[in-house]
């Protein structure tokens, strides 16, 4: 691989890392009152036919589907912060697509209660010109519990319904 391609690969990884950090910032700003809602700056990060899915929340397709999910989320979550770390990003040889894995935890106020969510993101990306966009976001929830109850007994609180 020549120097140009090696540098380009590092730039792609950096740009995808930024994309995921902005995902958290735009999501949280919109929910916490620091940004516009619906968060068009967040939706703009997704390809038109992108998918956001989690077995704990459902499957949402395209900007309208994801916007609807965010509206439901705002109705129940009055505060949240997405902490995202452990980046592993792989860019395809032709730079057309990429994948990323992250671990996350999210303190939130859900239906008026302190709730802690932890899990893993497995994301796919596609390049549009020189921009990277989410093709899919998949969140595997490891635990989702009331903060005062903890995650030792049950990983997903039995009353959970979305």
């Amino acid at each position, binding site marked *: 691989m020549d120097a140009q391609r090696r540098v380009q690969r590092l730039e792609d990884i950096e740009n995808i890392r930024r994309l995921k950090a902005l995902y958290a910032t735009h999501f949280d700003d919109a929910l916490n009152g620091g940004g516009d809602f619906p968060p068009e700056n967040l939706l703009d990060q997704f390809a038109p036919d992108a998918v956001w899915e989690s077995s704990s929340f459902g499957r949402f397709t395209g900007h309208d589907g994801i916007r609807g999910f965010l509206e439901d989320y705002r109705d129940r979550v009055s*505060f949240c912060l997405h902490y995202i770390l452990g980046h592993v990003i792989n860019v395809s040889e032709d730079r057309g697509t990429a994948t990323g894995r992250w671990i996350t935890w999210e303190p939130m*106020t859900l239906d008026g209660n302190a709730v802690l969510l932890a899990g893993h993101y497995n994301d796919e990306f596609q390049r549009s010109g020189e921009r990277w966009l989410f093709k899919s976001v998949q969140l595997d929830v490891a635990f989702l519990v009331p903060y005062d109850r903890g995650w030792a007994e049950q990983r997903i609180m039995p009353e959970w319904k979305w």
Partner: protein
Amino acid sequence: MTGRPGAGDDGAGTAELSDLETRIAKLEEIEAIRRQVVRLNELFDKPYDADGLAGLWTETGYLEACDGQFSGRREIHDFFSDLAASFTLHYAMNGLVDVDPSLQHATGHWYGWETPVVAGSPLIGAFTSRQEYARVAGEWHLAGLWETAHFLCAVDAGWVREAEPRQERSSRLSEK
């Protein structure tokens, strides 16, 4: 820059090399700033090494934190000297670093998580931080840091009261 294989002496080759060097330099500076942010958090966890922390700012650097505003290294040093935690760990995540084309200025945004012990009680805190950096004598320093605290609560209490709901914040704003 002579003798680079394949570059020859033509202007295009030189321009290509210059472009590549600029792009590599930007990636290097992003990495250097990340290291400084790690250093910042390590000094928070001494806990609060005021000498070391003040030295991370420029001479005229600025800090907004804990409802206070501090200008210059002396005020920043005094602020950190007064912090009371006997133990803390700081986690910096979700880093966004933008380096100016001049490679002399940059901005950053970070999510923070902290675990201080204050007056014998364990707390957890969540905050976000907007930062500005300036390169002084080849080293990145903080020109400004603006911290937004989302909550700092007793471990056994949780954050619901402190991370006040949007609705309350909105109604409070509308009363003004």
